[in-house]
């Protein structure tokens, strides 16, 4: 395949670069993973590189018997399972209407939505408005504001505009109205792109921490990532005081340390993403490319 010397040198450089990037991207995850599986006392000795030295599931046991974590998992799953389908249906209904050339004031409505991509009220007025809607400290704050997304609307609308016009022309002749055309004809044809935006929405639900952290005070409404922020903050202040000795002592007494707990919690929050997304890769690559064509 590689015939002359120049190409051989070039390919060596290419693969060296790729391997370097591979390590830089993958190894941090691996490092966290092995620390989470190592015993707390042994972790303090440091120099964990490739494998756990003293295998222990104590941190996971600690995490998975914590009622706060289970509550957080429950809230996170709930918001993902409720928020994602509702967002997909809201966005696809809008995209359908905006994809119709005959829509009265279509340009106005497009501008109405697109403008919000470039200008917004910012965090403080947003908080105040949520408060006047009684959404502060309310589970619905995780679902309702996220039902609309202009960028996804553009992706779906572009896809729908690419569908053959004859499809709904003939349905119209058969006496179908717009809602019937949407649900019976257009929606089934749009599934690939709906899967893409659904995947993105679900991942952003799973990953979101800010709304839970800022817009809720009730500990029962904290999402998994918000709980992880709390653990991270505790660690950050802990290391600030330079309380390594206290941490060491507590680790000797207990099977777990703040460090290993933090790693285990990180893994619990990461694993679902890592497990789900390779299967859905083809969808987001398709979605990204569609978006790229537009922008």
């Amino acid at each position, binding site marked *: 395949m590689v015939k*002359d010397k120049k*190409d051989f040198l*070039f390919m060596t450089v290419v693969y060296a670069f*790729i391997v370097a*990037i*591979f390590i830089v*991207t*993958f190894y941090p995850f691996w*490092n*966290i993973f092995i*620390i989470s599986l190592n015993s707390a006392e042994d972790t303090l000795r*440091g*120099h964990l*590189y490739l494998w756990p030295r003293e295998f222990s599931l104590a941190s996971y046991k600690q995490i998975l018997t914590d009622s706060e974590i289970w509550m957080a998992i429950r809230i996170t799953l709930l918001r993902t399972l409720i928020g994602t389908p509702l967002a997909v249906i*809201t966005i696809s209904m809008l995209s359908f*209407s905006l994809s*119709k*050339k*005959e829509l*009265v004031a279509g340009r106005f409505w497009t*501008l*109405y939505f*697109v403008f*919000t991509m*470039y*200008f*917004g*009220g*910012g*965090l*403080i*007025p*947003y908080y*105040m*408005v949520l408060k006047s*809607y009684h959404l502060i400290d309310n589970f619905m704050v995780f679902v309702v504001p996220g*039902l609309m997304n202009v960028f996804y609307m*553009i992706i779906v609308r*572009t896809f729908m505009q690419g569908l053959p016009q004859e499809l709904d022309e003939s349905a119209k002749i058969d006496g179908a109205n*717009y*809602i019937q055309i*949407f649900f019976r004809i257009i929606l089934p044809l749009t599934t690939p792109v709906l899967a893409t935006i659904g995947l993105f929405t679900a991942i952003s639900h*799973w*990953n979101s921490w*800010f709304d839970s952290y*800022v817009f809720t005070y009730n500990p029962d409404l904290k999402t998994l990532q918000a709980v*992880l*922020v709390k653990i*991270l903050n505790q660690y*950050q202040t802990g*290391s*600030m005081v330079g309380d390594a000795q206290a941490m060491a002592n507590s680790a000797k007494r207990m099977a777990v340390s703040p460090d290993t707990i933090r790693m285990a919690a990180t893994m619990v*929050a*990461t694993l679902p*993403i890592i497990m789900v*997304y390779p299967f859905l*890769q083809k969808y987001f690559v398709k979605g*990204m*490319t569609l978006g*790229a064509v537009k922008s």
Partner: protein
Amino acid sequence: MNMQPKAQPQGSGTLAVKRNRGGLLDRLKEQRLLYVLMLPAIILTLMFSYVPMFGLYMAFINYQPGGGTFFEQFFTTDFVGLQWFEYFFTNGDFVRIMRNTLAQSFLSLLFGFPMPIILALMINEMRNGWFKRTFQTVSYMPHFISWVIAANIIITMLSSGGVINNILTGLHIIDEPIQFMQKGPLFWWIIALSNAWKDMGFNAIMYLAAISAINPELYEVAKVDGASRLKQMLHITLPSIKPTIIILAILAVGGILNAGFDQQYLLQNNTVMQYSEVIDTYTYKYGLQNGMFSYGAAVGLFKSVVAFILVISVNQMAKKMEEQSLF
């Protein structure tokens, strides 16, 4: 600005439009179901995007927590004009915040912009097979984890007993572990490299899509002429994706004030605050944590307006340069 594709006819011309030529009311009546389908999105956007924009009026009054409901106070509290903006520009924070925001954005671009291009060029040179597929899967991975997880990972890797310090001391490059997270000026570089780490694989997808659109005959001709793979990359692949590069570069400049929130908020600590604080974290700190609501809103409004002007002018620039709109 409008996001409609250029191909779309303006006004009449198509069959659909002609058939609906009646009066406006007739057409609206015929289309009422289209409006029904749009209604949820229209209301949601009004509630969560436009009402907060009107809420920006709070930047010109002295909003008091506990002094009546939010919208009531628009009429009951004193109008203070540009007082909050004056305060922002004169209290000394402005220069520091803008310095941090621009420095972090600029450094992030320095690493984050070329890396996906190089990565896409390299991936394109790889032979197809399981390693290429695995590599691409792994390269997107950091994009799909939250900044909370990323911050946990980064702080662990950079801690005094972390892998980076172990390697550096092991190679005798340094004698004592460096407290990376506690050195102010280093924070900018950490943010820039973290951004590049998290998004380079994902951002490479755009360039790979552009590369896949290149006519394969170009490479065939080059091969016949005896061009090496390096030459093919530099003289065919790279020039072919130049339009994509230019468009994304212009877009990136438009977003220069969006240095981020998550990464700074989650990676910072009190020792590096002088270097870590950017507009968005500052707004949050003063507006919500310290209860200076109107001040926070004013700083946010300043940012929104400048960012908006930047994006619009950058779009004009792009139009002139490429005859290709961003919208």
